């Protein structure tokens, strides 16, 4: 079987990763994320009309009824309409919570009561902030746990590689969500944590092989051993990515509007996660000068001394 000389291109890969991540950071710092209702707080009402309808008309109707600040858009089909309202600073918490009801009443009135309420959500500003904090904390906690577990099971250098790879994947996915202004809500956050899980899976499989090969082979350059390991796991990496992508595309196409963001985030994450376990995790290992000495099974120091009289 022909070997793919992965590590030959590692400089190119590293620089393009850096460039992409800089792009992601730039987009995130310029236009941030398109935060969903879960994080911003506010009100959302999804209604379905008996036949195709026009958001422009609905917007006008709401304008005329004295509403302002609302965003009206199609949701999934041309009969389903989603209306959002940001939290109203002039209203009390109690009145903010009632906004959804009066919004639905206003929509219903302008459609002669012919509409169905599909979904209505209200998230108070305090809750939104809390969810965002918890989410960020969760991501950090996940990365910290990974760092600990991998350095305990493998070695610190592997842990650094894995965490940088995960960081890379999360930042990249966030960057795409920021760049394309896709909505970032709780399910996308959950998907991001699942991306961490998936990408980690990949990285561990590759690292495991690298460790094994380092221990077995007595000579050879580090980059050759890593290349060999990557090639040995390549088949598996491709097949697993493929089966995962198969189900994710099924979810994207058939799962409906509510989990679209979730599916997209995971699809991006799986693709970039596969790349990163090769070109980020392994690359970091080389950069940190992973050597055979790092992987020798440590002999317990006390063991020898005990035997002496």
């Amino acid at each position, binding site marked *: 079987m022909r070997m793919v000389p992965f590590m030959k291109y590692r400089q190119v890969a590293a620089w393009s990763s850096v460039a992409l991540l800089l792009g992601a950071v730039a987009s995130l710092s310029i236009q941030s994320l398109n935060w969903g209702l879960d994080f911003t707080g506010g009100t959302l009402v999804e209604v379905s009309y008996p036949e195709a309808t026009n958001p422009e008309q609905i917007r006008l109707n709401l304008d005329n009824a004295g509403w302002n600040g609302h965003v009206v858009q199609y949701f999934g089909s041309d009969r389903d309409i989603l209306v959002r309202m940001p939290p109203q600073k002039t209203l009390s918490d109690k009145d903010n919570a009632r906004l959804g009801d009066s919004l639905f009443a206003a929509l219903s009135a302008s459609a002669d009561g012919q509409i169905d309420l*599909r979904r209505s959500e209200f998230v108070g500003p305090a*809750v939104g902030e809390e969810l965002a904090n918890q989410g960020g904390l*969760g991501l950090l906690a996940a990365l910290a746990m990974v760092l600990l577990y991998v350095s305990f099971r493998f070695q610190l250098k592997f842990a650094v590689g894995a965490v940088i790879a995960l960081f890379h994947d999360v930042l990249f996915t966030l960057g795409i969500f920021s760049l394309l202004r896709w909505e970032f809500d709780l399910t996308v956050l959950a998907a991001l944590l699942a991306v961490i899980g998936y990408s980690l899976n990949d990285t561990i499989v590759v690292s495991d092989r690298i460790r094994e090969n380092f221990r077995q082979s007595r000579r050879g350059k580090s980059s050759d051993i890593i290349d060999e390991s990557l090639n040995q796991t390549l088949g598996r990496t491709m097949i697993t990515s493929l089966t995962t992508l198969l*189900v*994710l595309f099924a979810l994207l196409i*058939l799962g409906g509007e509510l989990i679209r963001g979730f599916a997209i985030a995971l699809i991006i994450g799986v693709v970039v996660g596969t790349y990163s376990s090769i070109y980020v995790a392994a690359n970091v290992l080389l950069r940190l000068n992973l050597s055979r000495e790092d992987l020798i099974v440590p002999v317990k120091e006390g063991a020898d001394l005990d035997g002496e009289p």
Partner: protein
Amino acid sequence: MLNRYPLWKNLLIVGVFVLGIIYAMPNFYPPDYAIQIQNEQGSAAVQDRELTVALSALTESGIQIKSSSLVDGNALIRLSTADDQLKAQPLIQRALHDLNANFVIALNSAPTTPQWLREIGAEPMKYGLDLRGGVHFLMEVDTASAVEDRLEGMEQDIKRAFRSGSERVRYAGTSILEGRVLQFQFADEDVRSKARRQVEESYPQFVVTESDLPSSADGFALNLTMSDSAIREIEDFAVQQNLQTIRNRVNELGVAEPLVQRLGRQRIVVDLPGVQDTAEAKKILGKVATLEFRLEASPDASRASTLPHNYEGRAVRLERDLILRGERVFDAQVGFDPDSGLPQVNITLDSEGGELMHRSTRHNIGRRMAVVFIETKTRDRYEFQDGREVKISEPYVEERVISLATVQAALGVSFRITGLAGDEARELALLLRAGALAADMFIAEERTVGASLGQENIELGATSVLIGFSLVVLFMLAFYQWFGLAANLALIANLLLLVAVMSSLSATLTLPGIAGIVLTVGMAVDANVLIFSRIKEELRKGTAPQLAINAGFERAFVTILDANITTLLVAIILYSIGTGPVKGFAITLMIGILTSMFTAIMGTRSLINLAVGGRPIKRLAIGWSQS
């Protein structure tokens, strides 16, 4: 060598698989559309007579009844279609209206799990609100102002104690400082230490410190800081009280399986499956009850100055003059009489309440005092308008005496009601709390899912699982052929076990949960892929087939374990930070990881051992690339 599993391992795998089938089975019986009838007073049972009235009303209107039963004081009527269910609710409401009791008639979905399955605890999975439709509220109790109110009450209380105590303390001024500190100022040090002794003796909920204010004439200050445990207690009380109010109210909404639960320090989750009218739900949940303390009228009192009431089936007349209302009640807790060891209810009033109570009781020792519980409820009335019968809902006030006890001494800020049985004391404390001054509560989050969207989500979810699953199965079969078949059987077993475990843990299935199942299907084959590539590699190196199989499983095992444990760690974090739907995703992911390790490693191994492990083979083909 040969690859054989010992008998016990094969039996274990078969056993787990059979258990999986049994516990997953309830999910394959579609639930019945049902109507549940409860008495509004939760403790009273629905009788045969009422069920008969309801059933005959349905038969008259030509609605097919599948079956009916009385269980635990509730009646359950099973119907054949969703349409019938919707029609049946108002019919039963109308029919039972003429009987003299209030009933809650709720739409329900009744599981059709066969008896023998139910006996071993096998139940179908629960659906989350995003799949069944309904309302989810997250209520936040304003505990901060409850604490402040209490602090102000204590200020008044201590002032009074200083003024009227056995040893008078002359204070120069008081103020409430930042961070819940109550400050008293005094003119000299002696007075301050006298005050300190008094406070420390009678108000253990405060931590007392001294500070000097050089710029002021009355520069000797005493700082009273409420202890953390005292603050916790006030918060707990405020939350418990609102919890009780909501529980009392939820019954009125006619919800089959409501969930009312405290979340964290100051929040309450309310899940109302099936409820669509959120405005109505909010109105009913927002209503509060109140209390009135009144003396029993003396026998010679004029009719005009008394109010007729009932207590434990007997008529009592209460004085029209009110002692005080529930907003003066701070706390009501079940306690025990230190002398007799019998249960009692300890009541704490605010200072003004204490004064009112003292004024009314000091000259009335030996008379009885009643506590009246007052709630606003709605009642339906049927009326003919334009020749058609229409339903009219109107509010009414329900008053009932929940306690009638003899006044033993002049009462003050805190007093107790004794002579109660354990259950009575608990019930009384609950009602007193429900009617006490309510800490404000507001909606922090609300999510409503319409019934049609819920149904659609179930269908979309089921389709994605099915298609995703089929794609993976086809791919594995095409790529690995016979070995792929083994992996596919393991995948089926995995899905079955996942459903079985979720059902028996009564975990809730949500839309993100379904997404988690789909993802699990995609990732579960990873273990098999790892094993198969290892075997292939061994074969390429020229290892004999049986040895290669063994080595493949052995070597891949550590990798699979490491990879899965790390993913499991991430899923656990997701579970602990997530709310509602995200938790649902984390649960399926966690369970999926565990079941897939079992099926992919042990299940596949057992199948392969059975197929090729028992005989010497010269050539082994895994998929298209042959050795």
